[in-house]
């Protein structure tokens, strides 16, 4: 066996704290190693060429690259050795950067650690067997979770690319948060005017199958072949009949249902269509408030519905869809006002959230676009905006910046001036974050043209004084305390993950960070992929994002799906379990423990019952291998012998 070891300097990233020359020297002494060298940037074009040539020149049959994390470049180098004629699994990576040069301070110890890490890889690679991926057909349909702007963009791009799209939206209409906005920064064009056409496209595109008012129940399968169970929640209105005429809403007697779309700015009816441009424009009954459900008598809507669409008996319905890839665009949430007691959040009606103000500004909102404050419907003259209301505040567990508040506050200040020329806006801020194209100019306009007074400092307390609200805070630039008597206070409440983000992640088998936002597989280079192949991310479910960023991610995710669907078959990862039927005693323990039901009984000609792995279903976790008492079922590339070789490399003295 002739193993070649290539040690990467990675500029100074490795060579800075590891004596690479010494490492190479030590590597040459390792049994089975025929060649070892160092290289400045192994991952570079010439670096890979070097590897290919050396393989040929030195007749290497195994290769170890000691460099960064395999999560970074394993794929790159596998391709390299394959090009040089070796099976791509005759390659191992020794992680001497993330796990060594970057975390250890003592050069001698680092060097020793690097040597041992390479020894580990060498021992493993000597145990490696050639593996060959099987091909399997893929189902070229895509599931998009979330009908916000990111989800719709992804759905439309996929559909235009010729894919069948299943779009699942939790609420009764697509549109998401953007549909709630009045105008958008920095162009101040009407939000629904630019979103509306997209919504219509979604509803009319023959390739898009929209499940509104539905949620993901269960996800089974693997890239190329997912089986999705979707729960269509009971609307108590037969949408095939409903024309969206609104007669029922007119007549509905229970008038204090919570208005989710307007974030409770004003009460809604128990039967409702969230907004005029809703897609689909169908009514939904909120059983929490509907008298028919609470009191057991009413039936007014049923009486007045011209098409007899009302059906109080309706039950949730489970539909199944088979797809080959999933785009997650489940969006974001906002913290509740009452999490901010020092601002009187939830206590004083005239302390509202940014999104609520957005609805008040909006012509299709509960006040038809007239700015009036909740308490007495008076037109406010002095409006105070408080940015970072919750954001960048460790004490309530939200250490991060919510990304777009600075900008929408500037927008809202501008719009306020447009609506009420004799009004005065104040903005309390920590920093103005306006890095986007035309963003900083925009925040300046708010101050210079629209006279919004920006105060750098935080608000300590908000309390009522007569009809006014007093905002007490610090001006850190003047180094004084300020008190402003305002009519309306708008809190830029922090962006959070949606409250069901974690449960959805568990169904998808993707990971989320401590704040509940989904983790991309590389923060820079794979921003819309997850570590679960076939599942992609778009929009704010991955972290707070404004509209352009969400839209680009929607398109990016769509592009990713289209590219994997550009082939008819996918290569299955050969790193799956395989049964040695000569050894298997048919105890069936693996069958019971496999999370994917990938193992079945099989009778051999001699009548013996043994286990058999269904290749396309096996995901390669290896639970079977650690369950099997006689080592008959082995996870390829992570077999007992391969792991034992590593253990022995470290332990046997």
């Amino acid at each position, binding site marked *: 066996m002739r193993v070649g070891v290539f040690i990467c300097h990675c500029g100074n990233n490795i060579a800075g704290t590891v004596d690479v020359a010494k490492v190479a020297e030590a590597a040459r002494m390792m049994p089975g190693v025929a060649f070892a060298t160092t290289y400045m940037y192994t991952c570079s074009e010439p670096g890979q060429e070097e590897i290919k040539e050396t393989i040929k020149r030195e007749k290497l049959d195994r290769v170890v690259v000691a460099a960064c994390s395999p999560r970074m470049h394993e794929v790159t180098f596998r391709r390299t050795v394959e090009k040089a004629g070796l099976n791509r699994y005759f390659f191992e990576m020794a992680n001497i950067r993330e796990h060594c040069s970057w975390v250890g301070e003592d050069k001698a110890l680092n060097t020793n650690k690097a040597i041992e890490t390479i020894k580990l890889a060498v021992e493993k690679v000597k145990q490696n067997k050639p593996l060959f991926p099987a091909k399997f057909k893929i189902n070229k349909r895509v599931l998009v979770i979330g009908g916000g702007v990111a989800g719709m963009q992804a759905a439309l791009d996929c559909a235009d690319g010729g894919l069948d799209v299943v779009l699942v939206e939790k609420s009764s209409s697509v549109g998401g948060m953007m549909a709630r906005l009045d105008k958008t920064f920095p162009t101040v064009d009407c939000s629904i005017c630019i979103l509306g056409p997209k919504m219509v496209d979604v509803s009319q595109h023959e390739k898009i199958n929209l499940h509104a008012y539905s949620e993901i129940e269960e996800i089974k399968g693997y890239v190329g072949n997912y089986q999705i169970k979707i729960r269509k929640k009971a609307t108590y209105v037969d949408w095939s009949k409903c024309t969206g005429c609104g007669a029922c809403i007119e007549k509905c007697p229970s008038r204090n249902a919570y208005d989710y779309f307007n974030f409770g700015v004003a009460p809604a009816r128990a039967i409702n269509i969230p907004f005029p441009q809703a897609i689909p424009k169908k009514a939904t009954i909120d059983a929490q408030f509907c008298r028919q459900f609470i009191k057991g008598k009413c039936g007014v809507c049923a009486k007045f519905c011209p098409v007899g669409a009302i059906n109080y008996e309706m039950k949730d319905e489970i539909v199944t869809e088979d797809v080959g890839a999933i785009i997650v665009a489940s969006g974001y949430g906002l913290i509740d006002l009452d999490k901010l*007691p020092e601002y*009187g959040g939830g*206590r004083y009606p005239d302390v509202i959230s940014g999104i609520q103000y957005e609805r008040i500004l909006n012509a299709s909102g509960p006040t038809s676009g007239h700015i009036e404050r909740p308490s007495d419907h008076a037109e406010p003259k002095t409006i105070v905006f408080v940015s970072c209301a919750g954001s960048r505040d460790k004490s309530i567990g939200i250490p991060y910046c919510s990304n777009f508040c600075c900008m929408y506050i500037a927008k809202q200040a501008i719009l306020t001036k447009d609506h009420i020329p004799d009004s005065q806006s104040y903005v309390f801020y920590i920093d103005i974050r306006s890095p986007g194209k035309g963003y900083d100019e925009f925040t300046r306009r708010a101050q210079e043209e629209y006279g919004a007074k920006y105060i750098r400092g935080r608000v300590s*307390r908000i*309390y*009522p*004084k*007569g009809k006014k609200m007093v905002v007490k805070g610090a001006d850190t630039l003047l180094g004084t305390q300020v008190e402003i008597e305002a009519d309306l206070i708008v809190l830029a409440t922090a962006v959070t993950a949606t409250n069901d983000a974690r449960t959805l992640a568990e169904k998808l088998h993707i990971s989320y960070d401590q704040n509940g936002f989904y983790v991309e597989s590389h923060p820079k280079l794979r921003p819309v992929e997850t570590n679960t192949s076939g599942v992609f991310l778009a929009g704010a479910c991955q972290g707070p994002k404004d509209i352009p960023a969400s839209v680009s991610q929607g398109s990016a995710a769509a592009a990713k799906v289209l590219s994997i669907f550009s082939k008819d078959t996918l290569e299955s990862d050969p790193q799956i379990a395989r049964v040695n039927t000569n050894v298997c005693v048919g105890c069936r323990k693996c069958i019971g423990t496999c999370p994917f039901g990938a193992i079945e009984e099989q009778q051999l000609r001699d009548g013996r019952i043994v286990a058999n792995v269904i290749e396309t279903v096996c995901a390669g976790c290896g639970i079977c291998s650690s369950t099997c008492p006689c080592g008959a079922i082995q996870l390829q590339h992570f077999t007992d012998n391969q792991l034992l070789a590593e253990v022995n490399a470290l332990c046997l003295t």
Partner: protein
Amino acid sequence: MSEKEYIYFPGCSLEASAIEYDMSVRKVLTSLGVKLIEPDDWSCCGSTPAHSVDHVFAAAVAARNLAIVEKMGACTVITACPACLSAFKKAHHRMKKEEGFKKEVNAILDEPYNCGVTAKSVLQVLLEDIGPKAVAEKVTTDLPDLKVAPYYGCIINRPPEIMEFDDPENPLAMDKLMGAVGVKVCDFAFKVECCGAAFGVAKRKMVNELSSKVLTMALDAGANCLVVTCQLCQQNLDLRQGQINSTMGASFNMPVLFFTQVMGLTYGYSSQEMGIDKHNVNAESLIKSRRPVEERIKEEQEKAKGKKPKAKKAEEEES
């Protein structure tokens, strides 16, 4: 109601400047069937003067008293003074959390403190251990003219992780108790704003400004009287009210009573028994209209009768 017993730590000011607080606390708790035992040889709680110079020392002074209570075999000590309360709770909290600190403190003490004592405010005892229901049962007298703004001050419930009582931003304990004894309570936004605290001498003007804000807010809230839990607040707001008027060119005339005094009055004690007369701003004008509680109850019943049909109508609209 079952006989309750508590170790009661009066603290320095309740023996002197705020003796009326002590009087009212003892009387009110007695009428609620609570027996108070004063620990022998209790000493300074270690508040402001001590902890502003040396934390270990301050903790030791507090812990000395807690150790005494521990030795008495009790696990709770109650006090009316928020300063004592926070001194005790702070010392206990940090000694419990940091083994090193505990050693340091106990090294100074003859009798080590083993962190076995919970300090509670009289307010907390009344609200949680006795409860509004029992508190209400003892009411004999109605004070129709009294409209109180409950003013909690800064430390009775802050910092929350140490004081572990009520809401740090919008406390309601006194509101509930005042409600329970049938006194009109005004919702008041300055419940926990600063009164100027111990700066009365050093920075008089600042204290006057801050206190005057509190009084103004109380007036705006429609109150004609402040109820407090802290004798320092009481001092700044009552004793200095004349001062405030002259510095701020105002004309406040708002009595500032301890919540226990108000409770006592509703229990039928006289102004003298509650030491109302010890205050600067005279509260008599608000109290003199006092009457047996039955009268109020009758009134309310009549009102209710008057209301009935109206309420009915609303019901019909609903359905």
